[in-house]
């Protein structure tokens, strides 16, 4: 039966299969790690560095959004995933650069600090892999 499905729905549905499952699993782990870290920082020492810890919370929200939108099927979820992964890439690049060149204003404990060095640079790699994965599974209408 699945061979008779229109190409559009087949292409969209493969976003969460095969390698996509591993990608979503890793995103899920980072959603968990970032949420836990931001939660702990905000509860226990928010006054020390409000900006950094709010950025931690933003990272957590972005990872959660990316995990859910990558796992869901359909056109709008695809767009949501693309937006979330792009914000994630910008976040890790901007926060990574700031944490290295303006270290005083930027305590080094967010997921994105030093381009995610504390997490084996996976935070830097993840959005790139995510964008490649989304590009290869984009809607047929958008293909050249």
């Amino acid at each position, binding site marked *: 039966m699945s061979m008779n499905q229109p190409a559009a729905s087949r292409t969209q549905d493969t976003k969460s299969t095969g390698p996509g*499952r591993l990608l979503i699993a890793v995103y899920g782990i980072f959603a968990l790690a970032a949420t836990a870290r931001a939660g702990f920082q905000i509860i226990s020492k928010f006054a020390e560095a409000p900006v950094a810890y709010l950025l931690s919370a933003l990272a957590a929200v972005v990872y959660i959004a990316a995990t859910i939108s990558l796992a869901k099927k359909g056109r709008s979820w695809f767009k949501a995933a693309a937006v979330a992964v792009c914000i994630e890439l910008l976040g890790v690049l901007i926060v990574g650069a700031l944490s290295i060149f303006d270290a005083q204003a930027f305590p080094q404990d967010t997921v994105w600090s030093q381009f995610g*060095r504390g997490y084996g640079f996976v935070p830097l790699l993840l959005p790139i892999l995510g964008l490649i994965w989304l590009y290869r599974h984009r809607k047929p209408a958008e293909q050249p």
Partner: protein
Amino acid sequence: MTVDGWFIAALVVGLVSSAICVIAALLKKGPNDVTLLAVAAVELFLLSYLVASIVRTAAGTAIAGAPWEFWAYLITAISLPVAGFYWAILERSFWSNYVLAAVGVTVVVMMARMAQIWYGAAAPATATGAALRTGLGMALGTGSVQ
């Protein structure tokens, strides 16, 4: 961080479990008894660590860091093999074995953090951060970074 017997055991169990799952995935096998048991072994280890930690704290050992952070880490770690199992059996392709492989490695990292909280070692980010800053600064030719 202080490396104790629990961490060494976690390192062995977690890495062997991940290795088994990666090998199974490389052989293009879907999740089977071998890989699911490998993940179950990680869960069994974590449950014994939970019991031992409850016994140790009840016997009077104080956790050096924030106790609730330690327990939150432990409960999250315990739920990881279950989540990985659930996510893997929904689609029984060889890719799911890579998902299962992620469980063991992640648990080892979380155990390292739990050991830091238990024995009270500070996060070691500062020294390496300074080295990375210096290295990047030299690479980009900016003398002003410290």
